[in-house]
């Protein structure tokens, strides 16, 4: 897998969630992603960036434009140094929430992208990586 370009967007305040969405939209648009996939990606970014801010206490979104054979795509990693997720199985249950949300953030975001990786441990922060191919 080749990385063509990369960068980082900080996620510390609410406005950064909007900036992360706009950044993902621009990157995907530049790669010619079709509207439905673009909308799904931006929505997933919104959910994950909000999680980083609210539950992780802020963090970063790393972006990479990747090439894998004939296909190009976007790889986005949301990382924070927050408390981590103690019960992964529970967190990946539709409708379960530790905060005031609907519990659709993680599970919903997973459904909206092509690949989804979650790496977390209590006290060790959380890292969510998503892939969307154009």
């Amino acid at each position, binding site marked *: 897998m080749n990385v063509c370009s990369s960068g980082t967007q900080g996620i510390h305040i609410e406005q950064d*969630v909007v900036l992360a969405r706009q950044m993902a939209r621009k990157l995907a648009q530049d790669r010619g992603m079709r509207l*439905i996939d673009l*909308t799904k990606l931006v929505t997933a970014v919104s*959910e994950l960036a909000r999680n980083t801010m609210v539950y992780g206490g802020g963090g970063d979104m790393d972006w990479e434009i990747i090439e894998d054979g004939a296909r190009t795509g976007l790889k986005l990693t949301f990382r924070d140094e927050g408390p981590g997720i103690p019960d992964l199985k529970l967190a990946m249950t539709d409708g379960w929430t530790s905060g005031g949300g*609907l519990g*659709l953030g993680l599970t*919903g975001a997973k459904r*909206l992208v092509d690949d989804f990786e979650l790496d977390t441990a209590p006290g060790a922060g959380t890292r969510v990586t998503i892939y969307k191919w154009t």
Partner: protein
Amino acid sequence: MERIPILQMGDFLLVTIQVDMHDQLALTLQDDLSERISKTSARGVLIDISALDMVDSFIGRMIGMISGLSRIMDAETVLVGMQPAVAITLVELGMTLPGVSTALNVERGMALLRERAYSQ
């Protein structure tokens, strides 16, 4: 402070969301709307989201809350103008907006509001 404008048209309130909302802005809209419904005795609220290219679970929840809240205050809410890609994404996300009335565009939404408000 940044705010989303609420217009009054007779017995109805009209909200057109045209900016990429951050969470606090969505919450402010919710508060402003409940206050305006109470102050104007509005019978209905029309929310136009045709300019929104994304609705996530937070905005979806806000729409559901506004709808429930206005119903308790004797006003109907109709959501109009959702883009097809947004609708597909919302359903895939797991949000079907139960209890929220929708219409394809502003014209049909207003017709629906009138019908409901004056048939009682």
